[in-house]
């Protein structure tokens, strides 16, 4: 699903900061992989590159066999819309839209009619136990609820890949577990490939594979046997 070859990335803010120093990584279709590492190790940068939210300086990135390099903003928007779902630590819901409208937004950009996309969005909210919250604004919801809305939004367009950057970072341990359960369920039932960045060991241990990051390089990969 994801094939990274010798990815380099340098930030030029003041003094150059070589964040990724030749990363090679393969993630199989339907896999559930977590990336761990100290802050500043480059794990979030890698996730942003995989999500085409950021570009890379050197190497090759193939997503589902397609080389993702030097795409225009319009092309990358299309790839993101069709193939990738995002779950962020800070949820990134649009605060003046209701839960339902937030969930439906990816379908708006896919050109699905309002009536149809709202029906689908309500269905997804229902699956995540938030049907009664459909007309609420994000500011009226708890962190766990917001993250569930965000997950509903990430899966509504049936992506091949979900990228989650510290999805439980802003949540307490109970809600964290709920979110992880949902992500695992989505991975299992929908067959969507998951790549999550976390610094919490107990979160990472619920994935199939832990990629350890250190100083811009992969230091080790652990296989986890899920029960």
């Amino acid at each position, binding site marked *: 699903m994801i094939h990274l070859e010798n990815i380099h990335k340098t930030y030029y803010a003041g003094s150059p900061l070589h964040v990724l120093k030749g990363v090679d990584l393969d993630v199989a279709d339907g896999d559930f992989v977590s990336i761990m590492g100290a802050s500043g190790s480059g794990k979030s940068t890698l996730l*942003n590159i995989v*999500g085409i939210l950021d570009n890379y300086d050197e190497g090759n990135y193939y997503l589902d066999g397609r080389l993702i390099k030097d795409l225009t*903003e319009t092309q990358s*928007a299309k790839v993101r819309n069709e193939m990738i779902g995002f779950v962020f630590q800070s949820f990134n819901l*649009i605060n003046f839209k209701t839960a339902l409208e937030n969930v439906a*937004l990816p379908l708006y*950009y896919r050109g699905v009619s309002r009536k149809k996309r709202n029906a689908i969005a309500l269905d997804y909210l229902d699956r995540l136990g938030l049907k009664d919250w459909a007309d609420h604004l994000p500011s009226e919801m708890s962190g766990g609820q917001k993250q569930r809305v965000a997950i509903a939004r990430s899966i509504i367009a049936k992506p091949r890949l979900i990228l989650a950057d510290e999805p439980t970072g802003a949540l307490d341990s109970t809600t964290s577990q709920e979110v992880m359960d949902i992500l695992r369920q989505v991975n299992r039932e929908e067959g969507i490939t998951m790549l999550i960045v976390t610094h919490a060991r107990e979160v990472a241990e619920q994935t199939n594979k832990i990629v350890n990051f250190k100083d811009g390089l992969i230091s080790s990969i652990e296989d986890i046997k899920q029960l």
Partner: protein
Amino acid sequence: MKDLFQEIFLTIRANKMRTFLTGFSISWGIFMLIILLGAGNGLQNGMMEGFRYMSKNSISLYPGFTSMPYNGMQKGRRIRFSQSDIEFLRRNLTNVSAFSPIYNKWSSNIVNGKEVVSSTMSGVEPDYQVMRSLEITSGRFINLADNRQNRKVVVIHPKTAEVLFRNQNPIGQYVEIDHVPFQVIGLYDEDGAARRSPSFYIPLNTAQIIFNPSGYIDDVSFVVEGIENKEQSTDFSNKLRRMLSQRLQFDPNDQNAIWIQDRLSDYMQAQTIFNGIALFVWIIGIGTLIAGVVGVSNIMLITVKERTHEFGVRKALGASPRSILRLVVWESLTITTIFGYIGMVVGVLLTEGLASILAQNAAAATDEPHIFLNPTVDLTVVLAATAILVVAGVVAGYVPAKRAVNVKPIEALQHK
């Protein structure tokens, strides 16, 4: 398209205050522009209406006193127009379309029984009516036969008629002017001339015989065709002065021997002043418009900056740069159009309302001078101004949005 407007409606609903402020600066800009231009036009129309009673190209000639010695004669000599001088002018002026010597008796009593009106009596020729744009509301004006046969007839103003005859029809009735009986033949109305006691008119020859046996005339008015600008008018005055200087024996450079009042020059001078006012009003109006445009630009700039993070989220979800650009531009366009329209309608309603009230007042009091008349603005000007603001609003949205759209999604997402 419907979806786009729903998106716009949502953002507008989410930012009521901001939308209101943007909209208000647009409405206010258009509204003020209309009010300003309307006020300028009203002033101009009012003043011009006041000038209309003078046929635009009429010239009046008054005898004066010499201010320079000439041919051995001392300065300070009185110049007078005799009958033959008048005939000389009548024969020698070219391109004259109306001509009337005028004999004025400044204080004259017109009497019917016990009712008396004291006013100016003017002896005039038939052309006078055209020259002063007198409107005959009843009966007729003095004609050539009246003048030739020295008929004792008089044309009076309805105000005079009201005093002398109350509700009776004055036409055909007899009055006494300074103890001489005259028959009323017509009623006239005068545009714009605001006189407390309007003149009454009798044939010139009659006036000369009864009231002015010496025959000297102190006012000659005529209309010359083909004088359309300042230079032509000055040329004509100089020519006229030279022509008369030989006959009446004064220095051709003497400006005081005869007074030439050229109404075209007066009119053009007034016109220049009004053009100045109009320019001033336009400068202020355009300033207001620019203030509106700057206001819109500022608010759009802030709006787009505030929404950078939202745009990042939208991009992550698959929004193309074009779709975001379209969202901002359409939002800007919607707000400017709606509020521009509101400002336009309110402004036009106010000026038109004021115009109709003023028109009613003017109709009720015809003899009052109009300072302000029809303070309305040409609709094309209004539409053009609104269009400018709308376009400016769109550009004001487009430019910062274009910049925001070019930010990498990850940077937009990190923007707080």
